[in-house]
């Protein structure tokens, strides 16, 4: 599945991610006519986002865009455009082949098509959210407009999880959540059925209480 993704599916997935990201940014307050996502010939992404009021009012940002202090009125920053390395959007599409591989390898059932559909949708939402968080973090660090102190540590932590954990973990968690049979195999059924005779299991289930195996 990774090979199929790398050689065939990357382009359509990146196209879909670009479209969804731009739509999400346009829904953002003030983003209607400003938000734009483009891909340059080198594969890097150019993202223009509306500047949140709290960020646009920061003095260091205004000074950055008007270092000489020209004019009487302060510079009004309405949008921020930033370049993102192309490998990051590509990376955020990795969750799709991982999810598809897990579901296709799991026991096939009538509901598998529905699981594939819902899971793909959830992965798409997560990919867009990951890309938006990465964009916000890149802007915050490049323009020095991010929070400091504890909030800064939280932002750093969120970025670490976003770029090192979510893309790899989400497909597994989504598959386990949507696929009842797979979930049962991992968490509940297999070992108990293999070892315990059926009549004894009924009694032991009563004693074991809330963590007993799912039948």
């Amino acid at each position, binding site marked *: 599945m*990774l090979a199929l993704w*790398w050689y065939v599916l990357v382009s359509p997935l990146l196209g879909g991610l670009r479209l969804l990201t731009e739509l999400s940014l346009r829904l953002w307050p003030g983003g209607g006519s400003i938000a734009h996502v483009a891909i340059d010939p080198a594969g890097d992404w150019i993202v223009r986002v509306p500047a949140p009021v709290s960020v646009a009012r920061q003095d260091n940002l205004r000074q950055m865009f008007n270092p000489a202090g020209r004019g009487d009125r302060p510079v009004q920053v309405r949008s921020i455009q930033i370049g993102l390395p192309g*490998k990051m959007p590509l*990376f955020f599409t*990795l969750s799709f082949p*991982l999810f598809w591989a897990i579901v296709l390898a799991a026991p096939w059932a009538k509901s598998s098509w529905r699981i594939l559909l819902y899971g793909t949708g959830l992965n798409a939402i997560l990919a867009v959210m990951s890309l938006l968080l990465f964009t916000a973090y890149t802007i915050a660090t490049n323009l020095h407009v991010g929070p400091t102190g504890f909030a800064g*540590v939280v932002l*750093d*932590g969120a970025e*670490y*999880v976003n*770029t*090192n*954990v979510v893309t*790899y*973990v989400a497909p*597994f968690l989504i598959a386990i959540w949507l696929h009842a049979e797979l*979930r049962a195999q*991992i*968490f*509940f059924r*297999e*070992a*108990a059925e*293999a*070892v*315990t*005779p059926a009549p*004894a*299991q009924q*009694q*032991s289930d009563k*004693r*074991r209480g*809330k*963590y007993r*195996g*799912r039948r």
Partner: protein
Amino acid sequence: MRMGRFLILFAVFLVVLFGLLVAPVSQPAVRVFTHGLVTFSAALIRLFGGRAVALGDLMENPVSHFEVQMANGCNGANVTILLWAAVLAFPSSWRQKVTGLAAGTAAIHAVNLLRFISLFYIGQYNRQWFDFAHLYLWESLMMLDTLVIFWMWAVLVRRSWSMADASTQ
């Protein structure tokens, strides 16, 4: 309810453990651990006749001067935390948890050493293959490895329940 409790505990442990990992106070320990992994990897390569020296979090081939860095996400800490959160959240005895944490951590880092050393050689051979193996293939395999370790441990835990139940009949 069982599943819900597991998921809630799993999320709580994840937040706490990742919070500890990225907290500034933990960074010196994380750095020492990362440097230790690089030093051990270089020693392993030399043991088998290869050429590698450790320079902090960098491993270098002294002949070609190719370097590979073990960055913060490459030291296996992220998948180790995932395994720990899952094991701690899963209903089992403390002895089973400790066994699972120790054996699982050892297994993850054994695979991670293999990953790091293989990337060192793939990078010297082909840069494109290195990017693919580094960002996509090995990371996915590490995650799969973690899931399989947890799965095997969970099966053993449940088997011990069943055996205990059967022996009381």
